């Protein structure tokens, strides 16, 4: 059976709030939450100029590759990464073994501040994710697929 990640309004709002707070308190340029498979979950801050879809896919690829390196070195995983650019820096961390928290920041912030704020945000996100997984496993929410018919799927592919 395919394991799905399902996101509901209530939890997304909580995740958004965590990101907004992290963005504000760390003076970051932008904050992204990405599924480990490269799907964007949410974003906060100055994202208009960013290709968020590509960033998500590449970051997930990067995290997967780093995870592969960790395995080769008999490490469980490298929980965090930091890329230093001339103008923009990127802080990447894995949260709750399930999602990736990305903070983009410039000279208005510092690695120390970002690390500090990420720690708090990560613990809050972990809690939301735990609730989300339970909710989606319990099957208490109606599924979109309950309504979708085979004809709906066929119609999508009619030219």
């Amino acid at each position, binding site marked *: *059976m*395919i*394991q*799905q*990640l*399902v*996101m*509901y*309004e209530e939890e*997304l*709002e909580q995740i958004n709030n965590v990101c907004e707070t992290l963005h504000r308190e760390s003076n970051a340029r932008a904050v992204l939450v990405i*599924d*480990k*498979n*490269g*799907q964007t*979950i949410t974003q906060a801050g100055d994202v208009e100029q960013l*290709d968020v*879809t*590509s960033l998500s*896919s*590449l970051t997930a*690829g990067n995290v*997967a*590759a780093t*995870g*592969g390196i960790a395995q080769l070195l008999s490490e469980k995983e490298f929980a965090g990464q930091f890329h230093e650019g001339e103008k923009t820096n990127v802080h990447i961390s894995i949260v709750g073994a399930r999602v990736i928290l990305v903070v983009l920041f410039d000279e208005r912030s510092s690695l120390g501040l970002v690390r500090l704020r990420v720690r708090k945000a990560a613990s809050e996100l972990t809690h939301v994710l735990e609730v989300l997984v339970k909710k989606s496993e319990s099957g208490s*929410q109606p*599924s*979109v*697929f*309950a*309504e*979708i018919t*085979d004809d*709906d*799927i*066929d119609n*999508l*592919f009619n030219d």
Partner: protein
Amino acid sequence: MSFINYSSREINCKIVYYGPGLCGKTTNLQYIYNKTMPEAKGKMISLATETERTLFFDFLPLSLGEIRGFKTRFHLYTVPGQVFYDASRKLILKGVDGVVFVGDSQLERMEANIESLENLRSNLIEQGYNLDNLPYVVQYNKRDLPNAISLAELEEALNPTKVPSFEAIAPKGNGVFDTLKAVAKLVLTELKKGK
């Protein structure tokens, strides 16, 4: 692993194009990219070597329209085909919802096809998947080349489970969208079945 977002009303799925080196996985994605309306696609990313061989993956995000108010988005990935990039291939298969195996029709590539197909099966098992339970289609590419072997021979060697298969000439686009549509449809049908 599909991602269903009830808040933004989106269904996101991951499709991986697998196959031996130089079979035309990247060419499939390039053709899809070139023939898709700008509003339905994102940027295509190719992490390639200087000689344009795939190093890590190609990535193409695609919107296929709406079902009952839910936008369907497919993330297409290719793996690097060359044998020594196996560690990268395993990573890209993580969270896959559907697989396209692109076979090279040329006689001299049959061994590489078979090796790649076996590699796909074993790498999926490592990730906890079974190819026989996944949405899966086969594409026989390079049908226009003079040394291409017959469809019957390809079917026998590369498609023992008789999943949907398509003949293709990827640079010209023959069979490319048929393959994509077939796997996308299987993925959505599988998601529906799962509930």
